[in-house]
């Protein structure tokens, strides 16, 4: 069995699966259950400063969107940071860490954007024996209206400033959690790095309204007929999160900055994908809120089996392996030509590829009288839509043409050499290939 142990910015855990700062990590009771289930670490739900805790709404906090059979695809929430007293949280963190010394214990923090506030909380957290802190600069609702959470995360200068305060006032490693509610994720990551942060974690939740009740005209979740945008998470956000992770991982300034990946991770495969894009570990929330802590067993066995199959002895072997393959569009090989091919034995003749191609693409699929479907190579641009809408896995595939063959659509011979847009004759800014 592959070695799943993980060392992330010096913090050891038996596997790379942490629970993200969120309701599942709000209390000793939950966290003990999580550790018993096998989770490698937790990021304790965000603590605020000493004093009367925040209050939450007393109506629904979550809204959801569903796929078939009410499979939860996206969740949003309007919950705030912990609404339990600071001292109680600290006592519990200390007790759990004492009993589970091999698990990673990170504490998420959010206090006002003033140095004294951070100076006050850092020592008391350090005293719990926690392994590190995560700065919550991402929470998009409620706290941001008070100048915290995403309100900080959207201003790179603030990120840098607070990260620096923390680094100067604690020996604990500092992770900066980033909000996706910005235009360029590299800017806050660069700011965190300048401030001395040890790592970034991303993404936090995305501003969202999951649905509108068409009877009451209230957004959901509805509190007495009104709704507020909440933070969106779950499987639906994974593609957005992975793109942002990859941006940081391949950015010259931040490529060596460790990343803890967050965003819709539900299975071992999701975790492996995030890690291949440069994440040292991953954090999970919605999946356990949907299925409970037990899913970590599948994540452990799945990742371990895959690593064995691929011959990876440790997670370090594959972390970042996909990063060099993420590039800009202009560098994609325009001499790569593929054609869709339908496996007639696998085809169940639903005709969805035909409808999609005929109505919305390139009219490149022919339908016979007996409802068999075939690709018209003269029209096929290899857009992949037919593959994407086909309900049968591997029924339609994109087959690359061999160099020397003639593409019946363009009449041009497929060239062996790589050539991209930067040198293409249609590009007014093309640079002649020397």
């Amino acid at each position, binding site marked *: 069995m592959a070695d799943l142990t993980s060392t992330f910015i010096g913090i050891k855990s038996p596997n790379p699966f942490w629970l993200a700062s969120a309701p599942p990590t709000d209390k000793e009771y939950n966290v003990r259950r999580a550790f018993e289930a096998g989770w490698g670490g937790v990021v304790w739900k965000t603590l605020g400063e000493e004093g009367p805790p925040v209050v939450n709404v007393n109506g629904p906090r979550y809204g959801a969107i569903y796929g078939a059979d009410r499979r939860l695809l996206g969740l949003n929430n309007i919950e705030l940071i912990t609404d339990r007293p600071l001292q109680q949280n600290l006592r519990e963190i200390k007790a759990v860490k004492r009993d589970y010394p091999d698990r990673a214990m990170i504490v998420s923090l959010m206090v006002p954007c003033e140095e004294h506030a951070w100076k006050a909380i850092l020592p008391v957290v350090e005293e719990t024996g926690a392994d590190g802190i995560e700065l919550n600069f991402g929470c998009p609702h409620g706290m941001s209206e008070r100048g915290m959470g995403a309100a900080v995360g959207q201003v790179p200068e603030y990120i840098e400033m607070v990260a620096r305060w923390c680094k100067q006032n604690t020996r604990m490693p500092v992770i900066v959690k980033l909000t996706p509610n910005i235009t360029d994720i590299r800017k806050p990551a660069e700011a965190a790095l300048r401030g001395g942060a040890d790592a970034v974690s991303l993404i936090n939740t995305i501003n969202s309204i999951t649905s509108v009740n068409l009877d009451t005209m209230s957004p959901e979740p509805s509190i007495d007929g009104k709704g507020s945008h909440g933070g969106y998470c779950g499987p639906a956000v994974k593609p957005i999160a992975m793109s942002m992770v990859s941006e940081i991982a391949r950015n010259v300034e931040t490529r060596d900055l460790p990343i803890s990946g967050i965003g819709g991770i539900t299975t071992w495969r999701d975790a492996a994908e995030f890690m291949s894009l440069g994440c040292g570990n991953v954090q999970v929330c919605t999946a356990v809120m949907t299925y409970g802590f037990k899913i970590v067993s599948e994540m452990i066995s799945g990742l371990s089996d895959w690593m064995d199959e691929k011959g990876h002895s440790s997670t370090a072997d594959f972390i970042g392996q996909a990063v060099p393959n993420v590039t800009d569009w202009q560098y994609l090989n325009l001499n790569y030509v593929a054609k869709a091919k339908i496996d007639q034995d696998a085809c169940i003749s*639903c*005709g969805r590829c035909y409808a999609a191609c005929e109505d919305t693409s390139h009219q490149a699929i022919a339908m016979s009288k007996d409802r068999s479907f075939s690709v018209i190579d003269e029209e096929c641009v290899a857009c992949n839509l037919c593959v994407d809408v086909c309900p049968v896995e591997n029924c339609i595939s994109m087959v690359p043409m061999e160099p020397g063959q003639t593409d019946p659509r363009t009449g041009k011979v497929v060239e062996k050499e790589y050539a991209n847009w930067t040198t293409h004759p249609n590009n007014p800014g093309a640079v002649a290939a020397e």
Partner: protein
Amino acid sequence: MPNSQMTPGIVPGRVPAEDLAENFDDLHPAYTGHEATVAADRCYFCHDAPCVTACPTDIDIPLFIRQIQTGTPDAAAKTILSQNILGGMCARVCPTETLCEQVCVREVAEGKPVEIGRLQRHATDTLMAKNIHPFTRAASTGKTVAVVGAGPAGLACAHRLAMHGHDVTLYDGRAKAGGLNEFGIAAYKTTDDFAAREVNWLMQIGGITLELGKRLGDGLNLDDLKTTHDAVFLGIGLGGVNSLRAAGEERDGVSDAVSFIADLRQADDLAKLPVGRNVVVIGGGMTAVDAAVQCKLLGAESVTIAYRRGQDAMSASPFEQDLAAANGVRLLFNAQPIAIHGNGAAAEVEFEYTATKSGKLKGTGETFRLKADQVFKAIGQTLEGAPETLKLKGGKIAVKGAGQTSQKGIWAGGDCATGGDDLTVTAVAEGRDAAEDIHTTLMA
């Protein structure tokens, strides 16, 4: 002492009343809302969907399933009913396993089709539970049409004609409308008096006058109808029953399966309906299965369906055969009755085994006997009481196009006419199409 399965002869009350209710419960229980959504999610929304092609009434199945899936079952019902006004009954009785569900791409791919019939029932039941009739009648045309036979063909024809604004008189010889829906289908396929409720719901279109107790040759004749109406549609079904041509057919205890099913459907109290201890049903179609299964449910000790050909030739679908077997009915193939023995009443049926030799079915000479105090004939129905002026073909009223008979101004459809299988859904399609043809003709 009450009767039991073992009581000899043809007696009522073989099973306790509470068991009877359970035995005759819905064969395919209705979906809950969530079940319907999950079932609808399985539909691939095929392009040029094979299920639509397979449906005799051309219901846009992918569309109505998507309407269920998006939470609008009333719209789904309208999609169904605009093609098939008896969509509620067809959802219950259609042999979907040989029609839409047989060609569902998921049946082809996985052996598990989208459950189109049950989804259709979910949609139509939802709308009918609200007592919504989603169609309105066009302004009166002043034209009158006589529709003879208030079975599926007649009802569909009458509804469509009324919708177009014609005044329809709908005649039926029985005391109730509905035809085979009311009298000829197993009770567990149409529970809670559904057939009658559906007729009442259908009549809400208005413009249809129902005249019961009148049939051709008994209160009606075609020439009068032709004179008094602008057009006539005949949906008179098949009233006669084929005879066994076996010795002893006249013995007590030998009767028609269709009559037995009609009696059962009209019985106020199934506990009072007599059934034999040992029942033999002769035939190989749906009627044979409906009769046999219901005998078993009434408490007969042994029930055998005897069919003279092999299993592959049986017109009852594999689903129906399985249903019979699951209810403890024995299926016997390649056995033809040659005599019914008994002293006054039937006691045994004597069969001869058959084999097909050079394309012809022949007795092998080997015989055997089955105990039988009740014998049902389910070997097909015949046209009865058809007007002599109409041309027949293969024992049915010959039609061309959309139900046009050999006589101008007279249309026919359903089981009594040529073309299509003898199914409820086919009858609905023929009635509907004839109505459109009549409408076009009258308005020309």
